[in-house]
């Protein structure tokens, strides 16, 4: 492309402008560029800056400072435990509700609390625990996480389970499978996509959550999100950015694996 053609091309662009569907996406793309891409670039740049110099010092600082890694470990464990509990509690609920006609209304009731801001709900939870004399600590933090994120598990599960074709189940029963066998051989494998999106939607917000752990442990438990918050509050932007990048990497890795598992069409998961 020659440079002198550029103005002409630009004019052509304007002249040939059509109000296609794509045009309506422009405001959002603009929004995305300003508020998502730019901050990420800033974080990336900050991760390599210390006192105005480009270095790897921030990474070294983080790796040699034992507490950040310990905090990261705790966060991942809290994330796994929360996800497990959400799955174990959420699956039976979603399964039962999918079989009821009024199920979707009851699912609405599960989602209803989410209309109240999570901070307000967490404050309420804190007060309740205090009043019934429960010591705030790791147990209450995990309770709070489960309480806040379980709707994200139930929703996708309910949708997938209620969309499973009934004939699979009927076929399995026709072939003489017991209800338990039917469940493990048809319903469970067919609901795998729901399980996976549920896990993603619970695990990722849990490891990055920060206010819940502070409120429900009187600040005595510090998770990765809290740690990043602490770094930025005290203007340690370099280390804070590195930690944000680690967070981002975690999100990407878990998304990658989830997609990998989910790639096979649902029906292939039947065995």
């Amino acid at each position, binding site marked *: 492309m020659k440079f002198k053609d550029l103005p002409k091309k630009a004019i052509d662009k*304007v*002249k*040939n*402008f*059509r*109000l296609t569907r794509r*045009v309506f996406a*422009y*405001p959002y793309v*603009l929004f995305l560029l300003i508020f998502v891409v730019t901050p990420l670039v800033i974080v990336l740049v900050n991760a390599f800056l210390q006192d105005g110099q480009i270095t790897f010092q921030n990474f070294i*600082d983080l790796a040699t*400072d*034992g*507490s*950040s890694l*310990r*905090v990261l*470990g*705790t966060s991942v*464990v*809290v994330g*796994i*435990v929360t996800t*497990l*509990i959400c799955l*174990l*509690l959420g699956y*039976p609920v979603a399964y039962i509700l999918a079989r009821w006609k009024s199920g979707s209304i009851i699912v609405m009731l599960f989602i209803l609390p989410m209309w109240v801001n999570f901070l307000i709900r967490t404050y309420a939870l804190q007060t309740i625990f*205090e009043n019934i004399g429960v*010591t*705030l600590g*790791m147990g209450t933090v*995990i309770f709070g996480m489960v309480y806040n994120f379980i709707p994200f598990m139930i929703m996708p599960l309910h949708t997938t389970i209620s969309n499973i074709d009934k004939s699979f189940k009927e076929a399995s029963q026709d072939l003489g499978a*017991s*209800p*338990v066998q039917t*469940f493990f051989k048809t319903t469970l494998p067919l609901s795998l996509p729901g399980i996976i999106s549920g896990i993603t939607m619970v695990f990722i917000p849990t490891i990055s959550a920060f206010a819940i752990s502070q409120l429900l*442990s*009187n*600040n*005595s*438990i*510090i998770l990765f999100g809290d*740690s990043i918050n*602490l*770094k930025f*509050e*005290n*203007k*340690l932007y370099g*280390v804070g950015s590195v930690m944000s990048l680690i967070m981002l990497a975690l999100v990407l890795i878990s998304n990658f694996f989830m997609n990998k598992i989910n790639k096979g069409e649902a029906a292939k998961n039947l065995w």
Partner: protein
Amino acid sequence: MKKILPFCLVVLLVVGVIFSGIAGCSFAEEPDETLVIYNWGDYIDEDIEEEFEEYYESVTGKKLDIVYSTFETNEIMLTTVEKGEEIIDLVCPSEYAIQKLMEGGHLQKIDSSKISTFTNVDSAIYDKVAEVFTGINVPGIGASESMVDYFVPYMWGTLGILYNADVVTEEDLATGYGVLWNAGNNPELEGKILMKDSIRDSYVAAVMRLKELGRLPSGYENIPVQTLINTVDDTLMQAVEQILIEQSDALKGYEVDFGKAQMTSNRAYVDLAWSGDALWAMEDGENLDYFVPEIGGNIWFDGWALLKNAQNVKAAYMFIDYLCRPEIAIRNAMAIGYTSALDKTAMMASEDVLAIVEENEYDVEEYFNDELRYPDIASATTLGVMKDFGERNSATIEMWERVKSSKQDNMWILWVSIAVVGGVGIAFGVYYLLTHRANAYRRLIKTAEELAEEENA
């Protein structure tokens, strides 16, 4: 033409959306001038803003609009000011943050001759500050500036221990800072002690506790308090980290803003608190008391500083002048619970002040002679002012994080095992329910079939 029209439409739409945000200005009566004030949250009697606007109009004939915003920590204030995007005239941070603002070249000198009420300010505060904050390098002005020329004190106080006198015994109190460690082994205090979620405050308490116990590293024993609490070298920090980790077993948690509420509702019995918060809580709660252990502690000052890029210097000076009037100062002190930085003899000389104190149901003598509210700054060698940690800031933050996460080591094994056991339990429950129901169903069919056979027969 047909093609251009929709294009224009889209452009208009986008531009409109963007500008509606920017141009969303009010249609109220345009003020002639504005004064931008950036202060701690809950740190002023709010009526005073409007009264000042009226006063300003009556003196200058111009309509002033006060733009008032607040911050929660000195660090948030520093970030906002250093970004330099907003025009701010006056800020009211703590002394160490003023030091940082000076070093960053964000402040201009205060010309005290422009403040007619300047003589009301307690000179003991200036003496103490002059002792500590000298030789500060202010870019563009001088390498050895004193903070005294850059701020007008507003409120001040100490850091001490707020406790519930019903629970905390004389023996506990005799341990000084040990109360925060439950050194008296009072069973009622177990898990009822709150610490500040701030490394600066916790550092003072920890250093003082080390001094009490005689556990300061060798060579540090005879350092005066003022120097000791500003010493952040590796040796002392290690000792501090150790003693703070020891403390975490006795604690209920670390608070930032909920300490007062916890104390007045008897959910906690001991709290590391600033004097103003403590005095406020003592008004509200039953049998609460406050003390600064004899061994020493931290004394702090908050004051007004004038920013370099201030756009309304005249109004800013008038505002400081206004705040330094005894009758205004006492109203602020009453509203927020902290101690005004005005000299108490100047305050007591004003009839208005006495009336306001009595109106708030205080005894005048008691109010001004209360040692909790007005400790003797001049003769207290055990009270030190904290400086900025400077380059050691990141090291202290890391240390604080290690302290707070010290108990998170092997706990996860416990939780994972509980989760696995719970999960298996639930799975078995579901399994049992399903098989049980299936069996019942089969039995039902069986009986139905038997009945049918009987009928056939």
